[in-house]
């Protein structure tokens, strides 16, 4: 179909979303997009979800940390913000999401608010609560693999 003339094209805003999860969580682009749309539909309803759009433009995650760019119709940014806050798990893995900024273009959003991809996490043994445990360290944060599951800690907790 012929595309719309410029003045009739929808105006978009692009939300930069910082993503955090456990280091071994397998989260794919399709799964994340599905959860975004579910969250939009569940919180905003079908019309609200359609208005917000919530299309995933960029998605990158590596070792438990990453970022995404989500497209939102202009004027629906606050509704989209609420919907994104309600994304709790992807493929059963808990995710921490924070909207780090809003821009008028994909590139501006990536450059201004996503920054460089997180420094790759390093695997090592750390002392945690009197025992040596395998852990992944990334930028001051340490995820410790304990018998009862992952525990989020910081460098200072493991010294």
């Amino acid at each position, binding site marked *: 179909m012929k595309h719309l003339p410029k003045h009739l094209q929808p105006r978009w805003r692009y939300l930069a979303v910082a993503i955090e999860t456990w280091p071994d969580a397998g989260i794919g682009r399709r799964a994340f997009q599905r959860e975004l749309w579910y969250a939009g539909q569940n919180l905003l309803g079908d019309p609200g979800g359609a208005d917000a759009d919530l299309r995933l433009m960029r998605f990158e995650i590596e070792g438990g940390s990453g970022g995404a760019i989500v497209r939102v119709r202009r004027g629906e940014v*606050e509704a989209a913000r609420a919907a994104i*806050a309600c994304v709790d798990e992807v493929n059963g893995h808990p*995710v*921490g*999401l924070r*909207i780090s900024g809003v821009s008028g273009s994909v590139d501006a959003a990536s450059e201004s608010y996503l920054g460089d991809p997180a420094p790759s996490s390093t695997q090592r043994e750390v002392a945690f609560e009197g025992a040596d445990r395998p852990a992944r360290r990334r930028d001051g944060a340490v995820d410790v693999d304990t018998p009862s599951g992952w*525990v989020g800690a910081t460098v200072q907790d493991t010294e």
Partner: protein
Amino acid sequence: MSDDAGGEGEANAGTDPESIGPYEAVYAHPEGEATVARQVKTAAEYGFEGVVVRTREAEYDPGTLAGRHGVDVVRGVEIDADDPQGASGAVGNFRGDCTVLLVRGGTDALNRFAVEQDRVDVLARPFDGTGDVNHVLVKAAVAHDVRIEFDLGAVLRDDGGSRVRRLRKLRKLRELVDYFDAPYVVSATPASHLRMRAPRDLAAVGEQIGFGADAVREGLAEWGRLAARNRERRADSFISPGVQRGRYEE
């Protein structure tokens, strides 16, 4: 309740109640899946100005963490008892150990107990389990200066029927709190750093569920006001409850 909730006549000398930023009240390892330090680090990155730690068993030094991450760290205790008798003993045991004392509700008896205790600061998670609130409880909360918590956790993490039921209860509580001008706090009740959400995102959720963004900000800041008030009361200037060292004391 959106705009005028800051005007309580508390002895907030020295701290302007309007200037307090959002606080979050978190669980920490061993009760949750992140240590206090990780919760505080994340809260600082998310734009919170303070963290209330609900877990009594957590080991941490509030001063060190506050200095490292630049946010206020408040020692709290959330009492999780099966019945009012157990909770009553715990209130007496832990009141002196913490700045903010919470009682986890969840049954009608526990909710009722918490709002009728002057020594309790916050009734946390009143809708867990079978618990509910009504006008009697909200009036008691006003009389005893107990804050009732709006737990947004279920809104953020549930869906379907359980979320609908929780939203219904939250709406009922919101109308009651509005009518009686009762004190309240708001929290996402994060058990790990992954469950935390930024203040602005919580405000957006509040707007969507009809609560109002300003009301959410008020409820997040109320933790900070509460901590400041309790710290002042515990300070050396109070000789005994209600008796403060004044100008002429030397």
